[in-house]
C-alpha cells in the first residue's frame, strides 16, 4: 500500500518538526522509520532495490529496518547504537526524525536524541506490551520536557488486529504516564512492516477511526518559542575585540528592547541596554530581540557582568539560592553519591555542588517509588534529590522557565546525568510573581538558612517502650541509615544521658520526670541547630512524654512519638543487659514493667510491633517517618498528617 506522492513543501522557511521515536528494543523503530521514508518517497534512487538485492543474495527477507543500518555494528547486532537524524517531508511540513536507541545500554544516546525533540512517538509491541524501556522512556520524556507524545502500538498483525489488545494497552500506558503529567495526544494501532495505519487507514482495523500515524504527525504543533515567559538572557561571554564591550549570549525566554533595564543574577547588578550589535554593520541595528536569538548587546553603564550571569527584568528574576530539589536521571558508570561533590552546569553557570540527600528513588524496572532510598543512584536510575551548591546559583523551577530550570551533572569531564528543578520558592514578599532573592542572605544562621544548609529541617523522633523492646537497636540503625542519606542526625540514648547530663538523677517518679524533661530540652536544642534527633528512652509516663512533645512544638520543632511496642514476656526473654533478671531478684528497684508501671502511648504517630515486624520492616517505617518529619515543608503540629503504615 503506497501513498500517492506528496507535494513538496513549498514554504522552505517553515521550521522543521523534530520528532524522536523511542521505545523498547525490538519494538520496531528502525522498521517504522524505514517505512516512513519509503512511503513518503524520501529515499535516494535505487536504495530499496540495492537492499532487496543484497537480501536476496544472502537469502534473507527484505526488512525496512535495513535502510537505516548505516554503521557496521548495527549490521552485526541489528540494534541502533546511536542517535541518527533522518529528514523526510509530507505535504504539510518537513520533519527530522531522531532515531533513538531502545536498548538499555544506550540510554545516554536516547536522551541525547530525545532532549532536542519537538515531539515523540513511543513505539509499543502489541504482543509484549509495556516493557522496561517503554516505562523509562515515557518518564524521561516528561523530564526532558517533551510535551507532545504519540503512542504507536506496532505489530498489530501479530495479535490478529485485536481491538481488545489495543484498548488494554492504551488504558495501561495512560495510567502509567498520568502521574508524570504526560497525556499522549493519540494511540495508533499499526503495523510498520505491512504498512497498516502508517499512511493509509488499515482495512484490517476498521474499528479504529483515529488518524494514521502520518496524519497524527501532521497535526502536531511546532512548540512556540517561550516569548511570553519572563526574560532570561543567558550570558556566554564578554568580547572586547574592538572598542566595544559586547555582552554576548542567548535569550532563552522572553524578550527585551533597547532601553530596557536589565538585572543580572546572581548578584543583581542593573543597567540599561544601550544597543543590540549586528554584523555585517551595513545591516540595520535591531531595537528588540526575543527568545531563541543569539545576540550581542552593549550596556549604558559598565557594570560587572560575566559568563554565567542571567539577565532578567527587575522584579521578574530567577531564584537565587544554594539548595534545590531536582528530578535527576543518571547515566555514568560511577553512581551519583550522597556527600560527594560534582560540577553542575546550569545554562552557562558552572558551580561545585554536593549531593545532599536522596528523597525518592524509583525502581529501575517499574519506575514505582521505592519505600526505602539509598545514598547512591546507579546508572540508568532516576531519583528525586537535593543538591547544595558552593556559591549562589540563579535558577528557575523547570515548569516556570525550562532552560534555566535544568542542569547537567559533570563527572570525570563528561556529562553524567541531568536534572530538572522543582519546588523552589520565589520570593513573593514584594507581592510580585518573582522578586529579587531568597531570604537566605538576610540572616546567615536563621532557621531558614539552616534548612537550606542541611537540605532538611530539624526534628525529633521520640522512641518509647520497655527496656529490651528494641528502641536502641532501631535507633542506632536508623541513625546510620539517615546519616548515609546525607541527613544531619544524632541520637540521645537514655542510658548514655544518665552517665552525664542526668548523672545526678535516680529512678524515683520525680527523677524520671526530670530525666525526660532534660532529654526533651536537649533534643529541642539540637533540633533547633538543624539536626534530626532520635531519642531512645523508656519514658514510661504519658504526661512526661506529652511534656516533651510540648517543649519541642513550642520551639517549632516537628515531634513524633514512636511506640516500640514489644510484649513484656519477649522483652524479658531478650533481657540484653540482664536487668529483668536483676529486677526479679530484687537487686534493682522501680524497674519499669516489674515494679514500676509503663503507660503505653494512647496516640503514637507510629507503633512498631517488633514481635510481628522484622527489624528491616520496622526500619522502613521509621525511615519513612523521619523523611516526612524532616522535610522542609513539614509544619509542627502536622507531623502525623497523612502518615500511615
Amino acid at each position: 500500500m503506497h501513498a500517492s506522492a506528496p507535494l513538496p513543501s513549498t514554504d522552505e522557511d517553515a521550521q522543521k518538526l523534530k520528532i524522536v521515536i523511542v521505545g523498547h528494543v525490538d519494538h520496531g523503530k528502525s522498521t517504522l522509520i524505514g517505512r516512513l521514508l519509503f512511503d513518503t518517497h524520501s529515499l535516494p534512487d535505487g536504495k530499496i532495490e540495492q537492499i532487496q538485492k543484497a537480501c536476496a543474495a544472502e537469502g534473507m527477507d527484505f526488512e525496512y529496518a535495513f535502510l537505516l543500518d548505516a554503521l557496521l555494528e548495527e549490521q552485526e547486532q541489528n540494534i541502533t547504537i546511536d542517535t541518527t537524524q533522518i529528514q523526510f517531508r509530507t505535504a504539510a511540513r518537513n520533519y527530522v526524525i531522531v532515531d533513538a536507541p531502545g536498548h538499555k545500554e544506550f540510554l545516554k544516546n536516547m536522551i541525547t536524541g530525545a532532549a532536542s525533540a519537538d515531539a515523540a512517538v513511543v513505539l509499543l509491541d502489541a504482543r509484549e506490551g509495556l516493557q522496561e524501556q517503554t516505562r523509562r522512556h515515557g518518564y524521561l520524556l516528561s523530564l526532558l520536557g517533551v510535551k507532545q507524545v504519540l503512542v504507536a502500538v506496532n505489530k498489530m498483525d501479530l495479535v490478529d488486529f485485536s481491538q481488545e489488545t489495543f484498548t488494554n494497552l492504551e488504558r495501561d500506558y495512560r495510567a502509567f504516564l498520568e502521574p508524570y503529567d504526560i497525556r499522549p495526544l493519540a494511540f495508533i494501532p499499526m503495523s510498520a512492516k505491512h504498512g497498516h495505519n502508517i499512511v493509509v487507514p488499515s482495512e484490517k482495523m476498521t474499528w479504529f477511526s483515529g488518524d494514521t500515524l502520518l496524519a497524527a504527525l501532521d497535526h502536531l504543533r511546532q512548540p512556540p518559542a517561550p516569548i511570553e515567559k519572563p526574560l532570561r538572557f543567558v550570558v556566554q561571554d564578554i568580547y572586547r575585540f574592538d572598542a566595544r564591550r559586547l555582552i554576548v549570549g542567548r535569550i532563552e525566554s522572553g524578550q527585551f528592547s533597547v532601553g530596557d533595564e536589565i538585572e543580572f543574577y546572581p548578584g543583581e547588578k542593573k543597567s540599561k541596554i544601550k544597543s543590540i550589535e549586528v554584523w555585517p554593520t551595513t545591516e540595520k541595528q535591531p531595537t528588540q530581540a526575543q527568545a531563541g536569538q543569539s545576540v550581542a548587546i552593549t550596556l549604558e553603564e559598565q557594570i560587572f557582568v560575566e559568563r554565567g550571569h542571567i539577565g532578567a527584568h527587575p522584579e521578574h528574576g530567577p531564584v537565587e539560592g544554594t539548595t534545590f530539589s531536582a528530578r535527576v536521571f543518571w547515566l555514568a558508570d560511577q553512581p551519583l553519591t550522597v556527600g560527594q561533590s560534582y560540577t553542575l552546569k546550569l545554562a552557562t553557570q558552572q558551580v561545585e555542588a554536593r549531593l545532599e540527600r536522596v528523597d525518592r528513588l524509583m525502581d529501575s524496572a517499574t519506575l514505582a517509588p521505592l519505600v526505602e532510598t539509598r545514598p547512591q543512584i546507579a546508572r540508568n536510575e532516576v531519583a528525586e534529590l537535593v543538591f547544595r551548591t558552593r556559591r549562589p546559583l540563579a535558577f528557575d523551577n523547570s515548569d516556570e522557565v525550562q532552560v534555566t530550570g535544568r542542569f547537567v551533572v559533570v563527572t570525570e569531564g563528561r556529562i553524567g546525568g541531568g536534572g530538572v528543578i522543582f519546588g523552589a520558592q520565589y520570593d513573593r514578599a514584594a507581592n510580585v510573581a518573582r522578586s529579587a532573592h531568597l531570604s537566605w542572605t538576610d540572616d546567615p544562621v536563621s532557621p531558614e538558612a539552616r534548612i537550606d544548609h542541611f537540605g532538611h529541617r530539624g526534628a525529633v523522633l521520640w522512641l518509647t517502650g520497655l527496656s529490651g523492646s528494641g528502641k536502641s537497636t532501631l535507633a542506632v540503625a536508623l541513625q546510620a541509615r539517615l546519616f548515609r542519606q546525607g541527613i544531619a542526625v544524632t541520637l540521645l540514648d537514655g542510658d548514655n544521658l544518665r552517665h552525664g547530663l542526668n548523672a545526678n538523677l535516680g529512678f524515683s517518679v520525680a527523677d524520671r520526670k526530670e530525666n525526660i524533661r532534660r532529654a526533651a530540652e536537649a533534643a529541642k536544642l539540637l533540633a533547633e541547630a538543624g539536626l534530626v534527633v532520635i531519642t531512645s528512652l523508656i519514658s514510661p509516663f504519658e504526661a512526661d512524654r506529652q511534656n516533651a512533645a510540648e517543649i519541642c512544638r513550642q520551639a517549632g520543632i516537628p515531634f513524633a512519638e514512636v511506640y516500640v511496642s514489644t510484649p513484656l514476656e519477649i522483652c524479658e526473654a531478650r533481657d540484653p543487659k540482664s536487668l529483668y533478671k536483676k529486677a526479679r531478684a530484687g537487686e534493682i528497684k522501680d524497674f519499669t514493667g516489674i515494679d514500676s508501671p509503663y503507660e503505653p502511648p494512647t496516640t503514637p504517630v507510629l507503633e512498631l510491633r517488633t514481635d510481628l515486624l522484622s527489624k528491616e520492616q520496622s526500619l522502613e517505617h521509621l525511615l519513612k517517618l523521619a523523611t516526612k518529619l524532616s522535610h522542609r515543608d513539614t509544619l509542627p503540629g502536622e507531623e502525623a498528617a497523612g502518615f500511615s503504615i
Partner: protein
Amino acid sequence: MTHLERLENQSIFLLREAQHAFKNIAMPWSMGKDSNVLIWLAKKAFGGHIPFSLLHIDTTYEFPEMLEFRDWATKEYGLKLIVKINEEARARGVGYETHDPVTVTHELKTVALQQALQEYKWDALITGIRRDEDSTRAKERYFSPRNAQYEWEYKDQPPEFWGQFTTSVEPGEHVRVQPLLDWTESDIWRYIQKNNIPIPQMYFARDGKRYRSLGCWPITKPVESNAATIDEILAELSVTKTSERAGRAQDHHERNAMQKLRAKGFM
C-alpha cells in the same frame, strides 16, 4: 523565527560556546560552500572578527580556482591563514597517480591534519560537517571529542543535551566543534543566497556540468546540471535523489569507506 534563523542562531551559540571553552582553536577551511558559510557565521558570532586561525590542508591536488578563491577571501575577510601540506607523504610519492583514493585521502588530508595538530597543539577544531552528508556524520555530536590518536570513539560517544557539551580534554586530545551539524545542503544554499555569501564559481553549471561537492581534482566529478543560479540549484536539489557526495570517489571506494576514514580522524 524561520527555520534558517533558528539554524543561524544555534550555530552562533555553538561558536561562542567553543570560543569560551577552548584556549587554542583552529577552523579548517576547504573553501567549499559549507566552510564559507562557517566563516560568515563566525563573523556574526564575534562581532565582525575571527579570533582564531583558519587552516587549509593543501593536498597539492587542489583546483586552481579554489586556490584563487582562498587568496581572495583571506584578504577580503582579513583571515589568519595556516596552510599545511603533508610534505613527507608527497616526498614518498603518495599521490592519486599511483595510490587508491582512500590511501591518498588519508595521507594527504587526515595525516596532514594530525601533523598540524601536533605542531600547533590545537584543543578544538571547528568543522563544517553536516548530518545529511552521509550516514556516519548523522551520528555526530556538536562537540565531538577525539582521543590522542585522533580517533573518533563513535561507539561510546558522551551524552550531549540541553546546550551542554563535552568541553574538557586531556593533553593531546581535541574536540571537533560542528556548528553546521543540523544544516542540510539546501539550507546552506538558501543561507548563501539570503546573505549573498561569496563562494567559488565551480558550484554553478558551465557547459552542462557543475560541482556539487568539491575536493581533490583527480577524484572529484561534476554532475550533469544546467543550474547556473542558486534558485536553479535549489530547484535541482528538490527533485534529485542522488547524494551530495556521489561525485567524491573516496567515499565509495569500498564498503563502509567513509566510516573507516572518519574513525581515524577524517572530517
